[in-house]
């Protein structure tokens, strides 16, 4: 067992080891490339790996650190920290495909703002992580390049859409990973893989260079093995960006500074709707135990009523497909992306329709169709306008809840990881996100942290605790999550089997 594996689970310790030159950055990168080489044949979490580029950057950072023994922080907050990024965040090296044949081989001419910020902070991008096609899915099965497996049980899904990013952390490929969320695509795979995942408030992180899906819902979010690691990554990527007019013009608090401070008189809200009979009993039990952990830490527990919880999926499956059908109209096979082989005498419009039919997989086609239908003449009022009205009601319901509590507590997902192919019916897949979509609809922030392991035929499957906080209240969210992490052993116990 390498001495580096445990360091990847504790970014603070990794940074200290690198800064004090107890471990070389190249050694860290070599370890990660080795683990990826040994494990990814079966896990299929990464679509592309950049070993040479990563080693070059490692050498450069090692050299810079050797010259700065007096001030190791000068090399950046994430100096030498290995990171994996979801395949819908563009880099000006390698390719970015969104898990789609439509973008097979697409080499972006620019890098996303989050990539620039990561690399300025000294992080080393190891590769691109698999995801559901165009981030549409909850299992990473709709990826055109093959489904990703859950390291806890290879016959099960890792969740999605950012499944590859979650697996990269769970299987020890990297210390940190970036995913993206439209309705739970960071938190749900984090829960199913036993890692930490954050959905930042809408506007907290720049979307420039994140391939657009549902523009009023999308956010980039961090994965790590611990709350502290995820907070560190959020610290680096958060903040206004001139190139994204929806990034909020608000200062970024020091998330790390206050992480271990007690939240004075923390009030935890438990919505009655989150204690649904539809939850797996092992999930329900783990969540009740989490409530008792907070009670034991002196938090006040209050019951909250969120009657619109059950309307979230319906609202989401109007807004997200409507926005997706507009955003994905750009893929026409002309400027970039897949183009069908032109047929003699074919006019341009036929070429568009054949290129899109060949390039997009079934889930993407379904959502484009759904969005197109709901935005078409005669249906706009009944679907889109009504969903936007319900969106306001949901946001108001959240605002009222946060007048009574600091965080809302519940399960991230109703069940642990399900078998590959277990949700072939699209609607049953959509219902996986019942507890997460309303966060995006309301623009709030949320986190999933490990809170238990379910026995499943001799194997163990992770369970995720979901905490939500009001928009731009990430500091309180992170502190509440850290309180739980420190009081329990879950972040130590939830380590995926290594083979």
């Amino acid at each position, binding site marked *: 067992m390498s001495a580096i594996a445990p360091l990847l689970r504790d970014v603070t310790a990794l940074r200290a080891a690198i800064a004090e030159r107890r471990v070389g950055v190249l050694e860290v990168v070599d370890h990660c490339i080795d683990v990826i080489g040994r494990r990814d044949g079966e896990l299929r979490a990464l679509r592309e790996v950049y070993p040479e580029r990563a080693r070059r950057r490692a050498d450069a950072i090692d050299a810079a650190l050797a010259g700065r023994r007096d001030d190791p922080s000068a090399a950046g907050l994430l100096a030498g920290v290995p990171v994996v990024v979801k395949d819908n965040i563009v880099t000006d090296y390698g390719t970015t495909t969104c898990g789609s044949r439509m973008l097979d081989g697409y080499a972006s*001419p620019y890098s996303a703002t989050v990539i620039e910020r990561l690399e300025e902070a000294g992080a080393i991008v190891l590769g691109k992580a698999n995801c559901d096609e165009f981030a549409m899915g909850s299992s990473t099965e709709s990826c055109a390049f093959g489904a990703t497996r859950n390291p806890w049980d290879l016959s099960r899904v890792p969740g999605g859409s950012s499944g590859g990013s979650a697996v990269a952390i769970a299987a020890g490929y990297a210390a940190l990973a970036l995913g993206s969320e439209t309705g739970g695509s960071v938190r749900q795979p984090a829960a199913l893989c036993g890692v930490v995942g954050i959905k930042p408030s809408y506007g907290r992180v720049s979307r420039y260079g994140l391939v657009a899906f549902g523009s009023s819902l999308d956010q980039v979010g961090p994965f790590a093995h611990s709350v502290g690691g995820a907070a560190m990554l959020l610290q680096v990527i958060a903040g206004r960006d001139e190139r994204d007019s929806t990034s909020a013009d608000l200062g970024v608090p020091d998330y790390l500074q206050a992480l271990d401070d007690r939240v004075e008189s923390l009030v935890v809200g438990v919505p009655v709707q989150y204690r649904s009979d539809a939850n797996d009993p092992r999930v329900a039990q783990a969540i009740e135990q989490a409530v008792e952990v907070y009670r034991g830490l002196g938090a006040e527990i209050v019951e909250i009523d969120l009657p619109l919880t059950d309307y979230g999926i319906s609202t989401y499956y109007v807004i997200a497909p409507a926005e997706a059908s507009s955003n994905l109209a750009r893929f026409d096979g002309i400027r970039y992306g897949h183009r069908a082989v*032109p047929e003699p005498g074919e006019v*341009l419009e036929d070429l*568009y329709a054949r290129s899109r039919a060949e390039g997009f997989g079934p889930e993407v086609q379904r959502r484009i169709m759904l969005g197109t239908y709901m935005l078409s003449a005669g249906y706009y009022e009944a679907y889109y306008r009504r969903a936007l*009205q319900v969106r*306001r009601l949901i946001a108001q319901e959240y605002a009222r809840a946060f007048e009574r509590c600091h965080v809302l507590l519940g399960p991230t997902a109703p069940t642990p990881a399900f078998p590959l192919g277990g949700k072939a019916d699209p609607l049953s897949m959509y219902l996986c996100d019942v507890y997460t979509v309303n966060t995006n609809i309301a623009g709030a922030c949320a986190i999933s942290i490990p809170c238990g392991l379910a026995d499943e035929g001799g194997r163990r499957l992770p369970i995720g605790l979901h905490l939500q906080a009001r928009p731009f209240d990430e500091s309180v969210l992170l502190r509440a999550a850290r309180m739980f992490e420190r009081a329990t052993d879950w972040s130590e116990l939830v380590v995926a089997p290594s083979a």
Partner: protein
Amino acid sequence: MPEPLTTREVEHVAKLARLRLSEEQVERYRTQLSDVLAHIAKLGELDVAGVEPMAHCIEFVNRLGNDEPAPAMPLEALLRNAPAVEGSYLAVPKVLDDGGGA
């Protein structure tokens, strides 16, 4: 509960969405999309009279960029991913039939 979609409606939507679908795909999507629409019909239960639609969860005002010239992206970088080019142009099939143009 809304009526299930008809084959003609699905074909029309596919045309609007610029997706050339097979008969078998049309039928599969007809069933699946009808199921999803039946679920979404739940929104009809809520009284939304007088509620202002919320397009964005954070109510931003338009933000104008600074009107400062900056270098454009190099042409070769933009054309690198194009499926077909002629010189420094994107190549496409004829937009109009013969004899229909200028």
